[in-house]
């Protein structure tokens, strides 16, 4: 583990990791994929008991009062476990948005309930076909070019959207009865949140693909030895792990910059999501390749991460959009070393 994290951050991560390992087994996830029934609220309740839902909720509303910079490792675990529930949308998007832009009444109405697990929020970004767990959540924030809109599930028309990753249980909220929470400025800020957070989740998905493949390559024997002893296989996995491990610190930095409101946060978030996307492509291709035929079966479970990764790659900043944005930034910048190089902080 990295020295970049505090004891508190590490213990939250450990708690999340243990919980998800227990509650997100392959059998459980596959069963949920195949069932149309409402998912068991047990996992959400366990997460609230552990404080995972309250991480970014301010203390005055019953939360831990931490920031999105404290979410980095937890979000990686969300991806690592392919957690179906919208923990990312809750902790990195809905809660910070409501805290910052909501009225006192709105904050009091929703934040304590979220921290305690009674209410499940979600977030519907502009580019998405629907919000994660949209057919189950109690409340949502919808993005629109005009701003952010708060809508209660009980008062909204929610259209169920079929996803290739059915665990996401997408639901599309109509803006109809929604209350305006904030203007377009908020959308720009939440974009930074979304990109950074989605990058961290995606890196967790990618790392899981690497770990599954390494385990497989050590076990699977052909030509009288483990396939992982062949250089061709080794190189695929080396490339995949190098991609993920170099992407991770970018997501951590972006979350830290987002939390602190640093000027760099916008491009840091784009850099984070862009590198996570690239790492995800490599991990996805190499993981399936290493698994061979068995990786292509429904029963084997690799597809859970392949599909989660593919969906997240294209949400909260797809490759071409991010690359052009960053390219434009570089073209319009002044001296690159002055603008993006090391700074001396004036005390």
């Amino acid at each position: 583990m990295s020295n970049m994290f505090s004891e508190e951050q590490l213990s939250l991560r450990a708690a999340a990791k243990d919980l998800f390992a227990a509650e997100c087994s392959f059998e459980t996830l596959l069963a949920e994929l195949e069932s149309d029934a409402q998912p068991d609220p047990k996992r959400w309740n366990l997460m609230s008991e552990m404080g995972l839902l309250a991480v970014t909720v301010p203390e005055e509303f019953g939360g831990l009062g931490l920031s999105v910079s404290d979410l980095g490792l937890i979000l990686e675990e969300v991806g690592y476990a392919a957690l179906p529930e919208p923990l990312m949308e809750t902790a990195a998007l809905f809660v910070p948005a409501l805290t910052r832009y909501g009225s006192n009444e709105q904050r009091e109405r929703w934040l304590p309930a979220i921290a305690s697990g009674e209410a499940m929020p979600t977030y519907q970004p502009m580019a998405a076909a629907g919000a994660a767990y949209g057919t189950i959540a109690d409340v949502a924030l919808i993005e629109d070019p005009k701003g952010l809109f708060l809508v209660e599930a009980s008062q909204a028309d929610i259209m169920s959207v079929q996803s290739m990753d059915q665990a996401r249980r997408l639901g599309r909220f109509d803006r109809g009865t929604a209350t305006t929470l904030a203007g377009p400025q908020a959308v720009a800020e939440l974009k930074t949140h979304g990109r950074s957070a989605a990058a961290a989740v995606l890196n967790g998905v990618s790392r899981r693909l690497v770990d599954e493949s390494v385990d497989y390559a050590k076990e699977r024997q052909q030509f009288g030895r483990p396939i992982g002893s062949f250089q061709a296989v080794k190189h695929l996995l080396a490339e995949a792990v190098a991609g993920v491990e170099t992407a991770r610190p970018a997501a951590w930095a972006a979350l830290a910059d987002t939390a602190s409101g640093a000027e760099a946060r916008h491009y840091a978030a784009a850099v984070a999501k862009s590198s996570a996307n690239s790492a995800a492509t490599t991990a996805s291709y190499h993981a399936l390749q290493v698994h061979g035929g068995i990786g292509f079966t429904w029963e084997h479970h690799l597809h859970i991460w392949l599909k989660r990764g593919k969906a997240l790659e294209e949400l909260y900043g797809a490759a071409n959009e991010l690359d052009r944005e960053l390219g434009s930034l570089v073209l319009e910048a002044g001296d690159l070393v002055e603008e993006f190089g090391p700074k001396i902080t004036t005390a």
Partner: protein
Amino acid sequence: MTNTAANGDMNAWRREIRTWLEANVPDGPLSDPEKGHIGDDHRDWEQKLYNAGYAAIHWPSEYGGQNADVASRIIFQEEYERAGAPPRATLQGLMLAGPTLMRYGTADQCDRWLGPILRGEEIWCQGFSEPEAGSDLANLKTSAVLDGDEYILNGQKIWTSGALVSDWAFVLVRTDKQAPKHHGITWIMVDLSTPGVEIRPIRQINGASGFCEVFFTDTRVPADNVVGEVNNGWQVAMTALGFERGVGRRTYVKFLHELAQLRRFIVDRDLQEDDAIQAELGRLFRKVMVYKYHVDRTVADSDNGKVGPEASFNKLYWSEMQQELYELGMRVLGGFAEVQDDHLSFPQVREWQDTYWYSRATTIFAGTNQIQKNIIAERVLGLPKEPRK
């Protein structure tokens, strides 16, 4: 080891270095060492650094350094690159020969060689690779036979960077032909003015002669020049290479400079509105910034000089990134990519061409990227080694 360099205040350290460099970095580039000698301007620069206490900040203070930890070293390197300071003439000595002497050398050896390295008075090169010993370095054959109190060296080294301008070489030689190949190797220091040493520069594809062949024909070297124990040279060499691994000589600042030049070409060629070029530029910017965050993490995770496993990704990462960066530049230059006529071309095109070809070597030297991937797969992921005959 307490870090006396920054004394914990990294911001103040950075300010100190930046201020000093601003006042002292020479205007314009220094002379080209490939002409066969290190010019006075290089010596002057090394002397200036030495006088300011910056010649080798990572060395222990008792040897003239500042006990700089990894974090301080990276800050120094970032500022050095930011200021466009001259390339060091003494890197092999400062980064490899010196630290190896401190770890394995006798007091006499340290007294003899460390001072001149630090003051830039003696220049060193590395005699490791041979025609039959590249990735498989342990296959080296240059022999050293003991005759009284001297070793007689016979053999050949290749790819020896800077040999033509060097005074000394640290050389890996075979002292036991019967032992298994990793166990019969010795590390020995060789004065390149010794009779029987012949240095031949090798012309590279970009026309430069950065590296050389070094031939030893009955070259007599004092047995006292062995560092570490006889036949223990492999361990000494691996430790030496370990000093390098993880704390790179390149920070993201150098790549920001290169990105800036790439941007200049894009503007010169009027390609700012080209969506594809814009996207590729953005991708490269992303890679450069990712490198920054990656090094920050490597620094945070290093403990008393020892680096964590993510350090193995360093070389793989920056070498591929640099190649992509220079490749894009050549594409942007289009018809001018091949042109060397200064009056027909843009400023800096020659330099870009030369560095483009150099970037092609980066995936080969310091451990090929294929070897790096093997190391990552085996040491980071724990995948089994390939069975060898």
